[in-house]
């Protein structure tokens, strides 16, 4: 969901990237979008220390950190007690192995975004990460946002979740309603009080 406007002042963000040039450019963009001074860290360990003492509304991590991968840091956050575990996380990568990108996604990142980030992309991705309606999933080792962005029905027509509907709904047991009958059912009707 892309918003027409966002208020980013007062949003506490954590940016973890060892590349000081990338951090500098990202901070310029975030300030332009309206965010106050975000907190920065160079390494995963520094980020963990900050995460223990503060709560953040948004995290932006580089996929490759000097002491751990961005995916490991995402997993660390997803194991924190609520509400920290629900923090929206964007993982950014300039040129990364496919494995690193998949690892970040599978660790529970909200989005994996390719560098260089443009202000447009950053605005839209933050807006999207702020979508309140996206469900969270805890399944085995995966904790993170539901990755099914489109509802295409259960895989292979076999539902595994409580709210999955079966593709096959069986044969009709009653005759089809006519259009007049359908209209009659949805037509506003007067209700008389007794």
């Amino acid at each position, binding site marked *: 969901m892309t918003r027409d*406007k*966002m208020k980013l002042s007062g949003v506490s963000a954590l940016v973890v990237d060892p590349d000081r040039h990338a951090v*500098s450019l990202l901070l310029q963009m975030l300030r332009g979008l309206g965010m106050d001074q975000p907190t920065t860290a160079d390494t995963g360990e520094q980020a963990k220390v900050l995460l223990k003492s503060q709560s953040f509304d948004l995290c932006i991590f580089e996929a490759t950190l000097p002491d751990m991968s961005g995916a490991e840091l995402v997993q660390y956050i997803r194991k924190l007690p609520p509400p920290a575990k629900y923090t929206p996380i964007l993982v950014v990568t300039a040129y990364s*192995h496919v494995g690193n990108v998949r690892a970040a996604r599978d660790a529970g990142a909200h989005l994996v975004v390719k560098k260089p980030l443009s202000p447009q992309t*950053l605005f839209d991705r933050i807006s999207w990460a702020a979508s*309140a309606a996206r469900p*969270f999933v805890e399944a085995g080792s995966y904790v993170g946002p539901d990755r099914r962005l489109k509802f295409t029905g259960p895989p292979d027509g076999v539902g595994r979740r409580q709210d999955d509907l079966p593709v096959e709904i069986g044969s009709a047991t009653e005759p089809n309603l006519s259009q007049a009958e359908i209209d009659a059912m949805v037509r506003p009707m007067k209700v008389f009080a007794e």
Partner: protein
Amino acid sequence: MTAPPSSTIVVKRYIAPNRLASLVDRPGGKRRERAIADAHRNLEAVREETLAAANLLVDEIEAAFARRSSDYRGALEDMQRVANQIITIAGTYKALSLCEACMRLCDVIAACPFASQGLDPPLAICVRTVRLFAPGATGALDEVSTRRILRELRQALDHLGISMPKDPAID
């Protein structure tokens, strides 16, 4: 209530609290167009110093390439790290030829561990191409020459079977 069998994965799916959502929707936000324009203005304010830094990073790539005979793995890691930094800067300021040259260099570095023979020649070509497109390079190239160089670089790497697959997971 009976416990699920041990082989069953219990899936919990719920709407989690999202503080960011409530914060960004407060009244008084910045309109998208204005926020983006302000962000662009901030980026332009640091253009000169950032591109100058990119030039120094190209020096770092050449220095790492020069010491590959003594520390091959370390040199490749450094080259990849610095190339990533240049990609970020060059891409931000639409120095697309420099950006692509660095990406091709990363392609070659990524292929090195799997190569049956040394990839020194393509590495050297990529490093020289990066230098050609560096912001402070002498004798700026015209559009036609730039396109030709990049096309031939791509062809050379394709010939060697060096290219990273695109991943749909990346935005």
